[in-house]
């Protein structure tokens, strides 16, 4: 449905990580945040592939930070969620909640 897109599973996780990290969201922190909370090993390539896709869709924006010596003089690429991204994550969240409502997933299937 055009203009009513839902986020994919990993896209959803990445956008939530960006919202959690706020101003500190760049490749390393996003990857670590996802690993810490989901306990799944994620590659930096997967994170950037998803962030690039989200940027193309207009859900996130990126900007370059200053180069730092611990990165071999390379700059960080920071990301932030756009208003359109917040709408998409809310829509996806509501759809998931509505689908799981009444199923008692944690009680019945854990």
């Amino acid at each position: 449905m055009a203009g009513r897109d839902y986020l994919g599973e990993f896209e959803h996780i990445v956008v939530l990580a960006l919202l959690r990290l706020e101003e500190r969201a760049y490749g390393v922190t996003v990857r670590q945040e996802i690993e810490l909370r989901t306990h799944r090993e994620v590659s930096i390539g997967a994170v950037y592939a998803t962030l690039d896709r989200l940027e193309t869709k207009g859900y996130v924006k990126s900007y370059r930070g200053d180069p730092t010596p611990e990165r071999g003089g390379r700059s960080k690429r920071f990301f932030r969620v756009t208003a359109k991204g917040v709408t998409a994550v809310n829509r996806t969240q509501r759809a998931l909640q509505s689908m799981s409502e009444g199923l008692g997933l944690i009680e019945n299937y854990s």
Partner: protein
Amino acid sequence: MTSPSFSLQPPRLAVWLVNLFTVPDNAEAIMGDLLEEFSQIAHQAGVVFAQRWYWRQALKTIVHLIGTAYRAAPWWTSAGVAGGMLAHRLLWRLVEPTIFAVLVRYQIPEHHFNVYVFFASTGIDIGFLIVFLFEGCIAAIVAKEREMAAATTLSLIYAALCGTAVVSWVVQGHFALSRLTWDFADTFAILIGGAIVRTQRSARHLSGNENLPNT
């Protein structure tokens, strides 16, 4: 004096490979992120663990970058693969006639029979190797910034064909290790061709950035 954390270096080959597969716009961020996390892990868990971690990240990242190439630029990447195949189709038929034409032109069979035997056997294999190298270059040139994605796809296609041929030889009892070595060297040559183009472009990209006026 440099701090010890900055003197720790991740595996050079892994760094080179990730650099080859990363589009220039993302290269700085991805390479920087990997180096930063490598240094953190090396201090917490040791260099050996950090190197293993780097290799794991590098290989997974490369797989994702190839996938991303097909999602972000499907037409250019596929055109690269098609261009490479077309180049192969046009050139491989010329190898044998060209080598024999040169040998006959300089009367090699009459005067230097050993040289003739070398060029009529190993020389042809080397000729095919050069065709595959050229094929990788063409695929990379056509695929624009996704050079290695196109070259890798092409290489995997030929590796699969070689694998099928090996099974067929084994079934028919004609297995020849030397033939197999040449065939797999051919598929590797495609990757080398892609890497050459990519390295040249990266160098041009870097020198272009250095020449930009400071704002």
